[in-house]
């Protein structure tokens, strides 16, 4: 499978270095190695979801209980989570660290991913969710750390977009 194990490890290490102890996920191809790493990690609680919006509630509960969390989802999972982001995380000032695989961009072979790819960034802008792209291993640690710092300072959701250049090895 040409999903990058090396870069998945770099992302996972960056999350752990930020004190993330609970990770919610709905598995998808680009996230497979990240899920495997979380499964094997005795110091992290992995919550496998039926639908991504549940993760907003779980992260909100974890935050209020004093636990740092991260959410792993595909961009279509972001689309499935909108009311939770607006009516829970933003309304109640809950920091969320959302790592979103940006499917449907240049190089996408699967027709079913393409519509979501075209709306993801515009949607985040409309939601006023600050976001940054993760495109190269060298900037992953710093961007993850800075995203979490902003989320905790602003008490708002932030997003990191997992890009093809980082996640996929053709």
């Amino acid at each position: 499978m040409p999903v990058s194990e090396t870069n998945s490890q770099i992302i996972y290490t960056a999350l752990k270095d930020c004190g993330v102890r609970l990770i919610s996920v709905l598995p998808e191809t680009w996230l497979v190695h990240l899920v495997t790493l979380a499964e094997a990690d005795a110091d992290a609680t992995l919550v496998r979801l039926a639908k991504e919006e549940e993760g907003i509630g779980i992260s909100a509960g974890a935050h209020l209980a004093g636990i740092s969390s991260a959410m792993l989802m595909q961009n279509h999972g972001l689309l499935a989570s909108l009311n939770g982001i607006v009516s829970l995380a933003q309304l109640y000032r809950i920091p969320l660290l959302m790592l979103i695989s940006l499917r449907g961009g240049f190089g996408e072979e699967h027709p079913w991913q393409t519509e979501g790819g075209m709306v993801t960034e515009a949607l985040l802008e409309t939601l006023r969710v600050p976001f940054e792209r993760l495109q190269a291993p060298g900037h992953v640690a710093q961007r993850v750390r800075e995203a979490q710092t902003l989320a905790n300072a602003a008490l708002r959701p932030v997003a990191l977009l997992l890009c093809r250049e980082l996640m996929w090895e053709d």
Partner: protein
Amino acid sequence: MTQGKVMLRSEALEAMYPNLASCAVVTIMGATASELYALGHRPNFFYLEHAMGLASSMGLGIALSRPEETVVVLDGDGSILMNLGSLTTMARYRPSNLIHVVFDNEALLSVGRTFTTATGTGSSIAAMAEAAGVPRSTTVDTVEGCRQAFQEALAARELTTLVVKVAAQGPANYHIDVHMLENRFEFQRYLTRDRLKAG
């Protein structure tokens, strides 16, 4: 279905209220929140005033994060029907410190006119919880039955979905004199009180 006088949600809440003093409580919005508030607000009560469906997910997040805390979610039929997958996620992790109460009035009540939900046309929340793998699920339709089932759930230390059949009737007013953000920070302070003391 229920026979005779149908229990009011406020009566069921009153029966549970003494036991809620030592629990972290997450309620859905509308009548449930207002009726719990009317019994007496406590710093361990969080009223989720929107985001329908996510109360059970929030309760799961708290229960997994604070295993020493007993977490009670006060859900409703309309809310859990919007997030049925949550039953399967709760069942997958089955935290022993989580009690999921569902007030089932078979209606979307708080909108101003009674719209029947699917529990009024034959769907059973307790059966769905059981089928999802929730280890304990039961339905009660009397105040005494509710009091007893809730105390059993507290003693069982096992994930429980307790469906409480109640009348489709709300409070005279929906007033809650605690701002959402005030409630949020107060609840966070309650949940992290040990850490604050230690710090």
